[in-house]
């Protein structure tokens, strides 16, 4: 009997106008979105390779000029999985620029590209699933129970001693299978479009496993939306009420909650803007630097005066060398002291800021998890390397790069500034002609670490399915089928 019910459900859905509309929308938008995402990724990859090659050509081997002005650049490669979810990618910096003083900064290409696409947003895979396919799921399932009641077939089914649980299960599986047909068809076309790219291969180890996980979770999300539609149907007596309720709930889950939660979190726990924080950090670093210059000058003046040497001169004469030799350890110690002080001050500011950001972020995420659309978006964007954890990942990579450049270059040269004069103390074996600027080895989280981060959202998606099912079951048991 269950098989008959499922088959009946699949047939009824397929021969409905709604199915045609859903198929049309899926078959047009999903492959088109994939095509554009692929072209966008190819463009970004070409740009990354071009800029990286040009940079290496310019700064091959050997550092010329003042080490203070040496800014090593690290470039962020685009994540291949960002084809599926653009997420925060459009807003992420492209590169890291290190600095001698430890305060790296990030930069982003400033040309705006296709302004209309930016104004209306991208049509990536996540958008298609959360907006088009989820809406299609609700539209296909909203009158599963209320519609049958209106047409009078529900009581006929129950009169045939069919348990209500079987009816519900039959509807759920039947509508879900019917929904999967246009979705998988359009996805197949989209994957063929993707595979045609010379830069992307679905079967590659960096894309394949993650894509399978995304596909599985998409299936779970759509199952949840079908269950939701059926659940709504058990709460309404007529199809008209069902659809209105469905659309209202969909608008709340897909539009309202995702956009309102970050706003609410910002209202409940406001945090300073990042450019203001960076400005303050820059000012603190500059002030400490000014103090260092003053102290260095004072020390030099004291020693030079003791040696009866003019304080505003530098020379390679014997008496100057003697005074400089006496100053060297003192300079190094002073530099070390101020570097430490600067690093501590900046680190304190950064940690305080990060802590506040983290609290606000946690609040926003937890508020938004009321909606399965948010949970699904978090899951797919995290797997694609374009999620809410990507900014932190970028900053970690940036800091690692800054440290690498410091170990290879900055840490081997001590710059002593005494007002108008600048001197350099080189570490043993340092040769600026043979040293080269290191590359940034940018790493995205692995599949395992991404899954470890997003398991609460995966669990929530499953719980939503269970919740909607349970609600629907309870309601159907009390449902007046007459």
């Amino acid at each position, binding site marked *: 009997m269950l098989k008959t019910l499922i088959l009946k459900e699949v047939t009824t859905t397929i021969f409905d106008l709604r199915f045609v509309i859903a198929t049309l929308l899926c078959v047009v938008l999903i492959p088109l979105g994939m095509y554009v995402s692929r072209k966008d990724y190819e463009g970004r990859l070409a740009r990354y390779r071009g800029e990286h090659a040009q940079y290496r050509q310019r700064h091959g081997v050997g550092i010329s000029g003042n080490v203070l002005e040496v800014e090593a650049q690290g470039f962020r490669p685009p994540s291949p999985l960002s084809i599926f979810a653009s997420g925060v990618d459009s807003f992420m910096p492209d590169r890291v620029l290190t600095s001698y003083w430890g305060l790296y900064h990030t930069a982003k290409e400033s040309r705006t590209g296709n302004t*209309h696409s930016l104004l209306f947003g991208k049509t990536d895979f996540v958008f298609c699933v959360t907006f088009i396919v989820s809406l299609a799921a609700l539209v296909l399932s909203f009158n599963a129970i209320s519609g049958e009641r209106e047409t009078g077939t529900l009581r006929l089914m129950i009169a045939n001693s069919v348990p209500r649980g079987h009816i519900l299960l039959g509807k759920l599986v039947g509508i879900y299978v019917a929904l999967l047909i246009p979705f998988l068809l359009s996805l197949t076309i989209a994957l063929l479009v993707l595979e045609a790219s010379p830069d992307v291969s679905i079967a590659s180890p960096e894309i394949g496993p993650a894509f399978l996980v995304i596909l599985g979770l998409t299936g779970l999300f759509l199952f949840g939306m079908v269950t939701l539609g059926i659940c709504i149907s058990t709460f309404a007596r007529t199809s008209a009420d069902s659809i209105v309720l469905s659309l209202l709930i969909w608008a709340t889950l897909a539009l309202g909650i995702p956009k309102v939660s970050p706003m609410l979190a910002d209202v409940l726990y406001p945090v300073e803007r990042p450019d203001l924080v960076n400005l303050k950090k820059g000012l603190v670093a500059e002030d400490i630097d000014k103090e260092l210059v003053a102290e260095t000058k004072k020390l030099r003046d004291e020693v030079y005066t003791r040696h009866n040497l003019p304080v505003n001169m530098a020379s390679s004469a014997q008496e100057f060398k003697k005074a400089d030799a006496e100053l060297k350890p003192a300079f190094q110690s002073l530099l070390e002291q101020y570097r430490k002080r600067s690093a501590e001050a900046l680190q304190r500011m950064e940690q305080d800021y990060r802590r506040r950001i983290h609290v606000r972020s946690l609040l926003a995420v937890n508020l938004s998890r009321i909606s399965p659309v948010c949970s699904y978006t978090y899951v797919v*964007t995290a797997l694609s390397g374009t999620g809410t954890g990507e900014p932190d990942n970028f900053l970690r990579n940036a800091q690692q790069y800054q440290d690498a450049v410091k170990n290879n270059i900055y840490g081997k040269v001590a710059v002593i500034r005494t007002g108008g004069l600048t001197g350099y103390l080189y570490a043993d074996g340092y040769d600026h002609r043979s040293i080269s600027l290191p590359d940034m080895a940018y790493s995205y989280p692995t599949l395992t670490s991404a899954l470890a981060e997003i398991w609460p959202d995966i669990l929530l998606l499953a719980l939503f399915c269970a919740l909607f099912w349970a609600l629907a079951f309870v309601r159907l048991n009390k449902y007046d089928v007459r």
Partner: protein
Amino acid sequence: MLRTLIVKEIADTALGLRFIATTLLCLLLIPLGMYVGREDYEQRFASYQEKHQAYRQRHGTPEPPVIGQEEAQGFRPPSVLSIFASGLDPFVPDTVITSYTGVFRTVKEPDIDNPQSLLFGKLDWLSSITLIVSLMVLILTYDAISGEKERGTLRLIIANSVPRHRILLCKIAGKYVAFLVPFGISVLIALLILEASPLISITSSHIGPTLLVILGVTLLFVLSMVCLGVCISTFTQHSMGSIMLLFLAWALFVLGVPKACPILAEVVHPLQDSAGIDFTERMVREDIERQFEQIKKETIDPEYRAEWDAMMRENRNKAQIEARLRETGREPTEEEAAVLNRDINRAQAIIDKRNEGANRLAGECDTRIAEALGRIEQDYQNKRDAQSAVAMNLCRISPVSCYAYVVSGLTGTGVTEPDNFFRNAQRFQNQVEDVFYDQVAWRLGVQRRAEGFDVFDPPPFPDMEYGYPTLAENIQAVWPDVLLLGLFSVFFGTLAFVRFSKCDVR
């Protein structure tokens, strides 16, 4: 009868569950969006002021001596009207950094510290209206005709000799007025929230008139949605059919057309990647500089070296003659006297001649670079404009796109804002060149300095005066979209009338 029908329509709508849901959503989302938009604007404005002040204090006047590496910076202030539509604001650069080369660069400080907001987008006025309000209006109106037909009340109304066009008009007017009540209240609350900000006054001359235009256009957009909902209702026999068609229409107009048309425009008019352009420009500039460096090495430098060597040889010769004469104590010969009397101290003249040649070459180099880059930029701009025009015209199939273009255009965050930014940036670059860079520059290893310019007492850099388009200019740019919104209302209304006139009410 008209008034009775309208009042009946208003009562019908206001006493339904859908109206309560619409009211709740409007009252919650519109004021909340406005509050957060206001807070965000205040923070961005404070940040802009601090950055500007810090810059003026520390780098506003270049530190003497001027060494040819100074760069004046200009900052883009946030548009107060961006509270209504964030549009392209997150993507437009913040800072212009001018340079001696004549090619400014722009910087956009990445703001990635609220990734949830970036992931899901802001619920500003534009999003609230295009996503939520449009859906609510369609939900309120989808069964205007088909619902009455199902219940059997439509034939009763027509049986009372009420003309069909009057029924339709009353439906549209009634639904429109009923929706305006919760919408109006939520807008009023939102405006009060806005007025409570110390930085914003909605009655000020640069906000008030634009705000009125935005409200007017919003009312026009809502009317077009009401007409669309009623029109959908005339095409079907049952409410269920209406809701299906409503779903399709909403998905197409709000999600499909605005997102798909720019994609189609990119396919029809593909454009070189913007960073590829930057790369090309950099390569062209370096090539030209290398060419001129080569010309200098082949012409000016050898000539300079030859003249300098000749002068040094004469110096040595003169010194040798003097030494010989001292040793021998004799009088110089005629030839020797000629050498001794010749003015060989012409080092400055040789240097001046070289500098003059290098300056001339540097000027030609600058001109060639500017021409080449200008050509590249112009070509890119033309292609981009063509693509943009195709995208815009395709998007205008949807009233939602038209509304988005109007509001984002009026708030200074629309598709033309990047061009406006670049115009301001170019103006600033030209201004700094006039005051500073043209007075002193380094090219091909030679310093050029205008008369009266003191490298040890340089003038302060000028400030960038960023100009947003005026209301008149904006209206001139967006009037086609406003007209289209009006036409959409007329079109949907006419379509509804034609369908309803043929409709079988039994």
